């Protein structure tokens, strides 16, 4: 528990000192969503139909912007070597870092989603499924994206490679997340796609820290 607290404290402290690093992706999310709104005709009912996809794709792209930094700074300044050799299991350290990443990027997106959904004229019936879906889906983005960031940490141009690795893996999350909102809007039960997202999240929390830790150890080979 001390290890998790130590990592969370460090990551939150660093985020406070580099606010723009974490605020810019949020601004990007807001801008993307608002541009869709501005590009549509006023009071166009079609916009509401696309709102779930717009919000999910915006969230996904916004989180992608932050992934490259997840382990790179630690790799470049030598901290990653210390993390690999520390008494604390690297798996636990990685899990804590991914959790911190979600707290700093995913959670604000979840909180922003409801007001932005209103801006896109998404009916109130779809908003709980949207927020719940993002609350379950954005941690998956952090964990899967974190694994890809760990795989590419030692590569010089990982910024270009990361989206190509991550986006296909996250397609199911996008499909079921937006699908839950559409189901709720259609008067259907949104529970099934949300359960699917929850299952994927449990799988990610269980497996990704081990896989990412192994990928990080491989970065020195």
């Amino acid at each position, binding site marked *: 528990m*001390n*290890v998790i*607290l*130590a*990592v969370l*404290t*460090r990551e939150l*402290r*660093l985020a406070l*000192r*580099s606010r723009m690093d974490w605020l810019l992706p949020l601004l990007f999310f807001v801008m993307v969503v608002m541009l869709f709104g501005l590009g549509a005709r006023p009071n166009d009912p079609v916009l509401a139909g696309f709102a779930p996809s717009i919000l999910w794709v915006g969230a996904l792209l916004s989180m992608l912007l932050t992934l490259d930094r997840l382990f790179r*700074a*630690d790799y*470049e*300044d*030598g*901290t990653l*070597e*210390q*993390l*690999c*050799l*520390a*008494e*604390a299991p690297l798996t636990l*350290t990685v899990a804590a870092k991914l959790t911190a990443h979600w707290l700093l990027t995913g959670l604000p997106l979840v909180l922003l989603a409801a007001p932005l959904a209103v801006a896109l004229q998404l009916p109130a019936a779809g908003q709980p499924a949207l927020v719940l879906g993002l609350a379950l889906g954005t941690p998956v983005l952090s964990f899967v994206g974190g694994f890809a960031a760990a795989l590419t940490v030692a590569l010089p141009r990982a910024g270009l490679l990361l989206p190509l690795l991550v986006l296909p893996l996250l397609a199911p999350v996008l499909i079921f997340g937006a699908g839950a909102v559409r189901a709720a809007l259609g008067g259907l039960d949104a529970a099934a796609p949300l359960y699917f997202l929850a299952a994927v999240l449990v799988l990610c929390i269980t497996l990704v820290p081990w896989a990412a830790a192994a990928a990080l*150890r491989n970065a*020195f*080979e």
Partner: protein
Amino acid sequence: MPPPSLQLEIRDLAVRRGPRLLFEGLGFALSGGEILHLQGANGAGKTSLLETLAGLRRPAAGQVLGLPEEGGLHWLGHRNGLNLNLSVLENLEFWCGLNGAGAAACQPALERVGIWKLRHRLVRTLSAGQKRRAALARLLAQRRPLWLLDEPLDGLDRQGLELFAQLLAEHAAGGGGALVTSHQPLPAGLAGVRILVLNP
């Protein structure tokens, strides 16, 4: 409390970096109280040897016997392992948190390396030598029998070199061992120093 005794033995070690074989058939031993100064030209494999002993890199062949258990060695690489946007104290406290060393260990360690008064300064504002001292403080925050130090003298001024020599001497006197790569000669007056030259 002295660190547990060290009996490190390397047999027929071969290390690769990518497709390139850096060296093979390397064998040597290191006991507690000894300091091994690794020398060699650039690219000879000094850093890779230390990385292999630390467990950061897998050997291509050979055996490493007698390595301390997990958490039993200190690693100081080319890079200091300090986040530039954290203060000296925050960096060391984080390291202590990951290694089960109490935060109380930070003050004596930073005082010993002479940067306690800089503890609240962000690392990015320190000179290269001060950053190196901050990295050296980890060696003192928790006693470990084996030190693997890659170019530890980089950036240190004369007082820093003297301090490093004292730390190394105290470590060896306490039964610890150290492998040190350096293109410079180690500070004079250190007892128990052996030299190992790696040729590419």
